[in-house]
């Protein structure tokens, strides 16, 4: 980062240090506390940030010792040390046994024992044959006085540096300090390092930049309701931010990009004048295939092509007059001018329940109540008895529709396909080839040159056979079409495997984007 932007990002704690010290001047924690009224935390932050930015450097580091009273020390200062209290008691009451002293002073045996030991070694106390202790010398010694002085001094000043104490005092302090393992010290020794910092050359430049840009460190950190109310911001500047801090990730609510893709497709189709249809997932053989004039013995109607429902296995009934009319069209063509498929239509089989295997079911059902002229579409879930892999799914979306009109014909069908190729797929080149579907005649496939994917089959289409439309009550030609949009969906989402369109993985779906 260049110095200028670094300077803009400095915290007020840093800015004030730079502005208040000269190059070469020694800077310590105490100085910051005195001059800038920083607390210890502020000092540490300022030093750590500035040195990490190489604006301050450490000049020297000195080790120092300090002494403080422990809790016990404070107690002794207030209530007297055991030695002082024993001497006082004996001077008031005369000779006493150790246990009597212990009891009267409410001390522990070992404290009385060690105090007696110390005092007797110095010759202040002696013990009689009756094990009674008495004072043998009138006044107490220097050591006790020194200890009392120390207790009072430390109590008053809280903490004293070693250099402010006499050698004898230091010795007493050390001897009565808490050892690491013991909890019973009177004093505790603290070790501190005094670090002296100076401003670096970069720091001096930073300081100049700060001065030049008028940054004082008194800039406003945050806009708050209070300063907006009291107008404090009016004569102040705002602290600059480091705009290069990486942004934090946000978890947001989002539509599924595949859903958006399908939604856009629906919008597009409805903008082209198509009305959306919808219907149940469970269908009958009748609507799934029979109504589409697929003979009941057709090879694509095998147990290995559609999913059958276990229970219930059959619909109660098929709507009339469609059942009779469709059955007749299979058997002998009914009134359609066809010879039909020439077999006996199975009216039990036709009630069988299956999971709809193509969207054309809904096109057929729509015919029973369609407007003329009319355009309809659906983007609907279908089910196939297929081994699932990157290019095959057991349940998936199909896009299908119909156009009804007195004057629709092969040329309007081609026009419709051209419109889909251009509007839905963004293709410039379109090719039509004859196709085959059991329910349309003639049938046309549309191949397009996609700007990214190259040539591929966009869809299949045709004019519904009269054996499909007439038994369902439609007298006009009906264009039927289906679009294969999966490859475009994958491309739009940057995917290669159809299974990923229906991913369970939350993170994958969260990170997925449309192109």
């Amino acid at each position, binding site marked *: 980062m260049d110095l200028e932007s670094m300077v803009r990002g400095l915290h007020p704690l840093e800015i004030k240090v730079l502005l208040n010290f000269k190059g070469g001047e020694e800077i310590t924690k105490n100085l910051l506390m005195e001059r800038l009224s920083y607390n210890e935390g502020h000092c540490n932050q300022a030093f750590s940030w500035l040195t990490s930015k190489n604006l301050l450097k450490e000049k020297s580091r000195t080790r120092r010792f300090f002494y403080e009273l422990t809790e016990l020390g404070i107690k002794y200062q207030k209530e007297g040390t055991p030695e002082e209290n024993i001497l006082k008691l004996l001077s008031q009451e005369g000779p006493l046994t150790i246990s009597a002293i212990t009891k009267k002073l409410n001390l522990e045996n070992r404290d009385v024992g060690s105090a007696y030991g110390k005092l007797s070694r110095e010759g202040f106390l002696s013990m009689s044959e009756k094990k009674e202790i008495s004072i043998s010398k009138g006044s107490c010694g220097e050591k006790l006085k020194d200890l009392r002085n120390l207790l009072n001094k430390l109590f008053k000043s809280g903490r004293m540096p070693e250099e402010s104490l006499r050698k004898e005092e230091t010795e007493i302090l050390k001897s009565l300090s808490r050892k690491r393992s013991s909890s019973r010290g009177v004093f505790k020794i603290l070790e501190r390092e005094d670090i002296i910092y100076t401003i670096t050359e970069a720091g001096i430049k930073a300081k100049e930049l700060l001065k030049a840009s008028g940054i004082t460190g008194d800039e406003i950190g945050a806009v708050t309701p209070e300063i907006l109310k009291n107008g404090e911001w009016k004569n102040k500047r705002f602290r600059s931010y480091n705009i290069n801090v990486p942004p934090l*990730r946000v978890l947001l*609510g989002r539509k599924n990009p595949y859903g958006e893709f399908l939604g856009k497709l629906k919008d597009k189709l409805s903008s082209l004048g198509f009305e959306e249809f919808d219907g149940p997932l469970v269908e009958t053989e009748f609507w799934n295939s029979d109504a589409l004039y697929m003979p009941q013995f057709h*090879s694509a109607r095998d147990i290995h092509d559609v999913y059958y429902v276990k229970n219930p296995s059959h619909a109660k009934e098929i709507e009339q007059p469609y059942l009779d009319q469709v059955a007749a069209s299979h058997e002998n063509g009914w009134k359609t*001018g066809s010879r039909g498929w020439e077999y006996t239509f199975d009216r039990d089989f036709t009630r069988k329940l299956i999971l709809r295997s193509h969207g054309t079911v809904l096109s057929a059902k729509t015919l029973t109540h369609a407007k003329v002229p009319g355009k309809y579409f659906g983007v609907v879930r279908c089910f196939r008895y297929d081994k699932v892999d990157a290019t095959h799914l057991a349940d998936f979306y199909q896009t299908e529709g119909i156009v009804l009109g007195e004057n629709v014909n092969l040329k309007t069908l081609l026009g419709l396909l051209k419109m889909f190729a251009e509007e839905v797929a963004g293709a410039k080149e379109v090719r039509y080839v004859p196709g085959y579907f059991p329910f349309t005649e003639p049938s046309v496939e549309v191949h397009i040159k996609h700007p990214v994917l190259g040539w591929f089959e966009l869809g299949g289409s045709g004019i519904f056979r009269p054996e499909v439309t007439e038994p369902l009550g439609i007298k006009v030609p009906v264009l039927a079409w289906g679009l294969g949009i999966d490859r475009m969906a994958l491309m739009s989402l940057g995917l290669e495997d159809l299974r990923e369109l229906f991913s369970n993985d939350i993170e994958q*779906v969260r990170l997925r984007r449309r192109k």
Partner: protein
Amino acid sequence: MPKIEITENLLTHFAGRKFSEKELEDISVVAKAEIDGRNEEEGLIKIELNDTNRPDLWSTPGLARQFRIFLNDKEYCYDFFSGGKETKKYGSRVITVDPGLKKIRPFITAFQADGHGVDEPLLLDLIQSQEKLCWNFGRKRSSIAMGIYRADLINFPVHFKAADPDLTGFIPLGGEKKMSLREITKKHPKGLEFGWIVAPFNKYPYLEDDSGNTLSFPPIINSAHLGAVKVGDSSLFIELTGTDLNSLLLASSIAACDLDDAGFTIKPVKVEYPYETAYGRNIVTPYYFQKPVVLDINYSNKLLGENLTVEETAEYIKKMGNSIAVKDNKIILKPPPYRNDFMHPVDIVEEIMIGRGMNSFKPVPPEDFTMGKLSSTEEFSRRVRDIMVGLGYQEMIYNYLGSRNEFVEKMNITGDDIIEIKNPMTENFEILRNSILPNLLNSESVSGNALYPHRIFETGKIAVIDSRENYGTSTKNYLSLLLSDREAGFNEVNSHISAVFFYLSMDYSLKEAEDPRFITGRCANIIFKGEVIGILGEISPQILENRGIEMPCTGAEIDLDFLIRTNS
């Protein structure tokens, strides 16, 4: 759709010319064929035939015939067909039929083909087209099965019998010892594959010649003796057995035309039935059974959006290999003997389209004005999705099929209303979902590493058994949502539900509920206009444990159809 593999040499031979890659692609259109792949080194071409009603195109001679006719503008004549008042000479070639076959496999057709020795590419092509024909058109041999034999070894008449499966036996092709018919269905690979066709019957179809030599056990396997056709054989006997006479007649006509194209002389065979058929008790095959179809050119012009004259129209139909006669505005089409796909005059319209060429039709944009509209379900679901996204939820899209284990067992429910698939391919797809919550929980179980909180939802369809409905089932539109986090609780999700209802301008209330999927005392039914339309609650730890989820989850599910009905 059938896919075949043909050799370039054989195609060149039958078509009478070579095709460049581009030429082949262009001409394929007239047969609705797609080039699926090419092996330059071995000279092989893979072709997909889209029209399941044109089995005549599933062989090299058949495909080449369509190309040749189209390019040469020449009609084809085959002179070996009986039919109508004409009966061709059949000599001693007679098949008798056992009355017992009427309910088992009632029909047989046959012919003999004599010529030069059959070479390997032709033999392979013959076998391939026979298999495609019997598999795709003959419904896996159940309605059509074909057998090819060495004609010079056969002693006519041939007898088509209903035989005792245990007392009748022979050495099957590819075998070494004699097996009974029943043994063949139990042990021979072809018997295991196709035995189901004869399994329901007490007697099995059986074909032998007058000397008692076995031809075959149709539709399963030929005999090792008469039924082992080899390269070099110059006299072939071809028979087809099955359940639908028209399909059989068509299939034998196709085979006969193919062999005729290959330079064989087709010799008819008479079949004597002990019962009536659509064409009498005695049928000499190959037999032309097709009926003429009449097209009014006003009809074809209306569908094509053109104004073609009767002469032009006739021209294009002929180009596809059809014989026609013209009378005023009507064209009478006599289908070629190898085709039977003219069910309605509309089928002739497609011949005109292909004969004239797809490019000759100029696209016209649809003229009728119609109003575009999204379904009420879609409109409403979009409103709901927008609110959910605003609440910070990620939309998920799931498969509708799942396993019983995920949707019933792991949800601690009895699953009485769940729709099961009778013929699942795998247990991963054995039921149709009755709720979206298991999908959302599946997501949780694979997303433990995704940054929390997880807020996910889906609006989609579910289906359940519903005996009040005609279909015994009903499909519903649901909203389901799940919140998973360290502190994912009832109250938070209830706030979300309350926001959903607020912005839909609807009211709801909660009523304490017991549900094995949720923690007791932390679960409520969502009530709308007095009806229970959903549920809300903290997911039971047992359910979470069942899926290995280690983060608390709270979920809700609402039947949107109630709301949609109110809205519209």
